[in-house]
């Protein structure tokens, strides 16, 4: 019975695949030779989704194959990442990863995965932390804001996305560096944090350069946590220029299941690198406030070690981990 059923299905599968309806698994010389599943561990419409959607057409352009985006939201990414290693490690399943999430979250409690479970093959992008205020805010410069924070300890409220996120760590780093005490209010995601700023529930927001890029007419960016000024905002100073040693934000990359062979990891890494090298892609990303970085598979290990050390220090200082 079972074998007959199997044969029946086999027949259907064969017909469907000859019609081009089913992916054909056995022509595997070139990578990719069929659509690649790209899982975003967050819901649709967020920044991780937008970066993936921007990569999608360039993936198709470079390989001729589709990049299929699906979502596995829940637990601030934990649901997706805890299932990463259960997927097939054949190079056709990849997942987005975010820093500092994958480093900080496992240290905050049992979230179903450890940082070492995640095999990152490429870090391609980062959205720098930035302080945003409403256009009508009395804070015209970063110094105005710091002065207010100094004279009103604890009363300067920042909205930001979540606890243990880049925003949260940036706030604690900022307090440290400027010797102030401000109040960080975690919201569910960047969108909610922005809404709170616009509604005047908080005085300032820890956001990203992308938020400023999308809402240019509503907000003023006081400073951005990059090495050099962001091309899209030539007038906005970096924290570094203002004597605050802060470079950071949310980093995004691509991970594969642990079972993916070394050679395949390299292939995935190369492919993401090639998308990153496309000038048209670069332009699209930069226009939306994203900053491209290139950390291929060979260098990811060192990058992660350095970031882990840094985030653990910051996380402890912020009190989100013990």
């Amino acid at each position, binding site marked *: 019975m079972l074998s007959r059923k199997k044969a029946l299905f086999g027949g259907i599968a064969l017909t469907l695949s000859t019609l081009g309806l089913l992916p054909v698994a056995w022509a595997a010389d070139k990578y990719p030779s069929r659509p690649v599943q790209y899982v975003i561990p967050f819901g649709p*419409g967020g920044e991780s989704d937008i970066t993936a959607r921007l990569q999608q057409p360039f993936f198709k352009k470079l390989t001729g194959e589709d990049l299929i*985006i699906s979502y596995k939201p*829940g637990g601030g990414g*934990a649901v997706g990442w805890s299932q990463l290693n259960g997927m097939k490690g054949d190079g056709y399943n990849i997942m987005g990863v975010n820093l500092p999430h994958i480093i900080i979250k496992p240290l905050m409690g049992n979230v179903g995965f450890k940082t070492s479970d995640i095999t990152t093959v490429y870090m391609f992008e980062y959205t720098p932390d930035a302080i945003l205020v409403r256009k009508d805010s009395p804070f015209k410069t970063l110094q105005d804001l710091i002065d207010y924070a100094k004279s009103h300890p*604890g009363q300067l*409220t920042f909205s930001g996305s979540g606890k243990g996120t880049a925003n949260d760590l940036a706030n604690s780093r900022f307090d440290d560096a400027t010797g102030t005490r401000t109040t960080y209010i975690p919201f569910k995601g960047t*969108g909610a944090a922005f809404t709170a700023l*616009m509604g005047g529930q908080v005085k300032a927001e820890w956001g990203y350069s992308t938020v400023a890029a999308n*809402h240019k007419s509503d907000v003023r960016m006081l400073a951005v946590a990059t090495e050099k000024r962001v091309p899209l905002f030539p007038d906005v100073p970096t924290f570094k220029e203002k004597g605050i040693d802060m470079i950071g934000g949310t980093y995004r990359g691509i991970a594969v299941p642990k079972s993916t062979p070394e050679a395949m990891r390299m292939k995935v890494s190369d492919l993401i690198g090639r998308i990153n090298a496309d000038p048209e892609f670069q332009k699209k990303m930069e226009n939306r406030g994203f900053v491209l970085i290139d950390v291929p598979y060979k260098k990811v290990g060192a990058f992660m070690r350095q970031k882990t050390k840094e985030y653990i220090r910051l996380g402890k200082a912020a009190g989100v981990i013990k």
Partner: protein
Amino acid sequence: MLGLEYVVDAVTPFRLMLSLAGVVAGTVLGAIPGLTATMAIAVLVPLTFSMDPASALLLMGAIYTGAIYGGAYAAILLNTPGTPSAIATTFDGYPMAKRGDGDLAVTLACLASVVGGLVGAAALLLLAPPLAHVALAFGPVQYFWLAIFGLTLISAISEGQLIKGLIGASFGLLLSCVGVAPISGAPRFTFDSATLLGGINVVSGLIGLYCIPVLIDLVARPERHLEVTGESRGFRLREAFGLCCTGKFNLLRSSVLGTLTGILPGAGGSIASLVSYSEARRASRHPERFGKGEPNGIQATESANNATVGGGMIPTLVLGIPGTPPDAVILGALLVQGIHTGPELFSSAGGAIVYTFIYGLFIATLLMLPIGLLIGRYAFRSIVGFPKAVLVPVVAFMTIIGTYAIRNSVADVVIMIGLGIMGWGLDRLGFKPSPIVLGLILGPIAEQGFVQGWMIGSATGHPVVAFFSGPLTIGIIALTLFSLLYPLLIKRLRKARKGTGDESKPSHL
């Protein structure tokens, strides 16, 4: 003015076809439990990338409109909200279907959805920039009180068992805490299980608590699922139209409430339909009929949830702040397309996209009338006509695939079935599912509002003061108190009038 010149752009053959296809696809997808409007739009977003922005928006808007209406079918015919927005439609829709008025209920839902959709779209067309600021008026404290106001609905839906309703709602609130906490990031009640890490998704909760018990009882008895009344009565359009005429104030009020709730970024179709349901019940001269198959209940919820489509678009397009969850997906798609949202979209120079879209949305909403009636007729006939041995496995299969597709997770399916068994058992003990679901939906809003409000209050003054100051806050608190005390007031009045005739006698349609 109002970009009237773009009406022509909205009715090109290609765009008409998009509206039609979008409404059909949305209605069918929304009817399947588990496939929400958000999902339906998200899976079809890639299709829109090859289109011009106005067509892309139009397609997404049409799918959205259709999906919100489609959710009513499953609510009425299977007691399972197809999308969370249809949750309150089950309260009266299913009792109507049970007594043989399922066809009428589906037609009513269609008419109400069209009215709600038109009101929402009109608000988007005429009042978008000024109304957008409603979105910003609500902060954490106001959301907290809004959730508390929503919880007062317990008294209406616990069918005379108030204490059990309160216990159920608290249990629902507790269920909403399962998983990684959104604000503090701490895992709660996960018992170190990866299954519970992502928490209990509202949609899987809805399917489990509403649909599985129906299936369990369906399979246990040989009787037909719904009453069949001998002859076919067509759409019963005239009857439905009459009901809409007598209930026009209810329709209008619910549509306006739906539009306003849609504008609030922290709420959505589910809150909109719950709020307008409770208002319709309060305003009704026969509140005791609600929950037992009152047509006004369906009109309220279905007009309100479709009004959120236009309402939610207001902050999305004016401020770049999504009003409802599907709007977040639409906004993301617009950003990928390189469209910057803002009031200038509504100015004459930048109006091409938005006005073409809005007029398209009107057309899609109107198209929903014939499409919705036809599909509704078909859905009704299949549910009534299918033999049990086909109906039960089909519905069971749809709940599984629908729950799985929420986030491609087998764990959600297991949770859904588990909740279903629990819900069935609790129902046997006298604890109804609706208060639990109410808690599940309102829990996150209440918790986030409370914690954030407290933190902001502590930073800038006294937290307790922050929870009781500001005209809006006081207004919501007053409304909450009013809704709690109103039944007592009515009782008093009734007592005073007793002897002048029995007017609470239930009458038939």
